[in-house]
């Protein structure tokens, strides 16, 4: 999985593909003719000004939002027009981290994380316990088992939700704004967690964020959404780009990234 070619546009290496997608919310067009692809085993960060449909794009990959036109393919399977039952089958290979965690209020953290295993796994209680404990420890929450989601802070909640998203070992993890509203230690904690997941398990990660610095640090590919179309490339390519739209969006953080990373590589 990790030995795939580096060319990001190579169709064979892409895990999720979006082709010619158009979507309107009422009178407001969100996407007009969107093409993009997400390489297998890589981290793709979707960036862009708010209101350009970053979350909508994630929801579309998860089958939660149907496009008006176009194709969405996950692992080669066209998912537009599938029934809810078929979507359910497809979603077993996906994990999704929602912006606010979306843990069930009425269940303890342990039960929340155990839920996907209880629903679909064939493990016994002992094995589930082992998996859930491992997941919670991986996100740095070893002793919150019996707490309810309402008793956790925002950062802990998001980490617990991440544990739930990965506990059933999906091939693709979708993360909606994993860094928003978090303090710097929590940002770097979640960032390194996501990176470890990608490196150790070969997960395909698709992350939306407007946290510039951490996005550029962790991304293999950046997808910049701009009023219904997209520009993609490695962080370096984007940081070096002279395209005015990119330069405007990247702003000072991009320049800072450039000075820290690119200039070092160039041997100043």
């Amino acid at each position: 999985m990790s030995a795939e070619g580096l060319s990001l546009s190579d169709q064979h290496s892409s895990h999720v593909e979006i082709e010619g997608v158009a979507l309107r919310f009422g009178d407001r067009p969100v996407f007009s003719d969107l093409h993009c692809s997400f390489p297998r085993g890589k981290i793709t960060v979707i960036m862009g000004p708010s209101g350009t449909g970053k979350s909508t794009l994630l929801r579309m990959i998860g089958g939660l939002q149907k496009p008006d036109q176009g194709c969405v393919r996950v692992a080669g399977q066209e998912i537009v027009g599938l029934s809810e039952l078929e979507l359910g089958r497809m979603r077993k290979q996906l994990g999704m981290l929602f912006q606010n965690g979306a843990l069930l209020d009425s269940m303890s953290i342990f039960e929340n994380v155990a839920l996907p295993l209880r629903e679909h796994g064939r493990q016994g209680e002992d094995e589930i316990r082992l998996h859930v404990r491992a997941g919670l420890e991986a996100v740095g929450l070893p002793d919150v088992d019996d707490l309810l989601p309402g008793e956790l802070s925002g950062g802990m909640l998001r980490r617990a939700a991440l544990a739930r998203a990965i506990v059933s070992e999906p091939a693709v993890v979708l993360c909606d704004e994993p860094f928003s509203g978090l303090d710097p230690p929590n940002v770097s904690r979640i960032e390194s967690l996501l990176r470890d997941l990608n490196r150790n398990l070969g997960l395909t990660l698709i992350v939306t964020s407007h946290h510039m610095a951490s996005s550029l640090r962790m991304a293999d590919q950046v997808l910049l959404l701009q009023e219904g179309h997209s520009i993609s490339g490695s962080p370096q390519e984007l940081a070096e780009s002279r395209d005015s739209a990119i330069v405007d969006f990247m702003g000072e953080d991009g320049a800072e990234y450039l000075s820290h990373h690119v200039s070092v590589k160039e041997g100043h």
Partner: protein
Amino acid sequence: MKGVLSRLGAWVTGGVVGLGQTVNFGASVLRSAFVSPLRGRQIVAAIYDSGVLSLALLCASGATVGFVLGLQLYYTLSRFGAESSLGTAVGLALIRELGPVLTGLLVTGRAGSATCAEIGSMKATDQLDGLRMMAIDPIHFVVMPRALGIIIVMPLLSALFVIFGIGGAYLIGVELLGLDGGSYISGLESAVAFREDVLQSIVKSLIFGVLLALISTYRGYACAPNAVGVSRATTSTVVTTSVCILLADFVLTSLWGV
């Protein structure tokens, strides 16, 4: 004039469309009740939320209604020298109408609004989409157990309401106003028949339960996913269900004859 007509038209169209969607939704809830697993844990939790937590309210209201009926009917009946029929009048009024209807309205306010608000806020905080992404059908996991809980709870609460009402009227009529306890009880027992009164009462409360379950879960499930949407859906649940229960009661009573 034209404006009024077109608004009326839009209102009717909206109503018909909404009704169709509600019925569709009800069909998928019904279907999911036969899909395994049974969701026993969730059903028990739903019975706790809408039944056990409504119990005190229902018993207190039942007794209070009984007090009032005891006083009012005693004075009305005593004008005709027929105080001894108090048991008959109280029993029939409670079992045939007041029990199921008032229970329906109280449970609507207590549990229907809570159910709607809970499902609505689960939607607003992506919990329903979160379930979908785990390949769990939210109708099966969230909606069906709550709907079933309400339907199970309604006849039980209605029966308790009636018994507390009969007891309340007994306290007033017999203990306070000095009516003969024996004639109260025998009037009650001889007037009330199982098929015509008790069975109809149970069927009524089941129908009100189905109405409340359907409306409250649908309004929550279909609400706009934000705070305003949830509060509107909750208000509309209480209003719509109350009107539907009163209308259904009239229709059922006139269908079955008095």
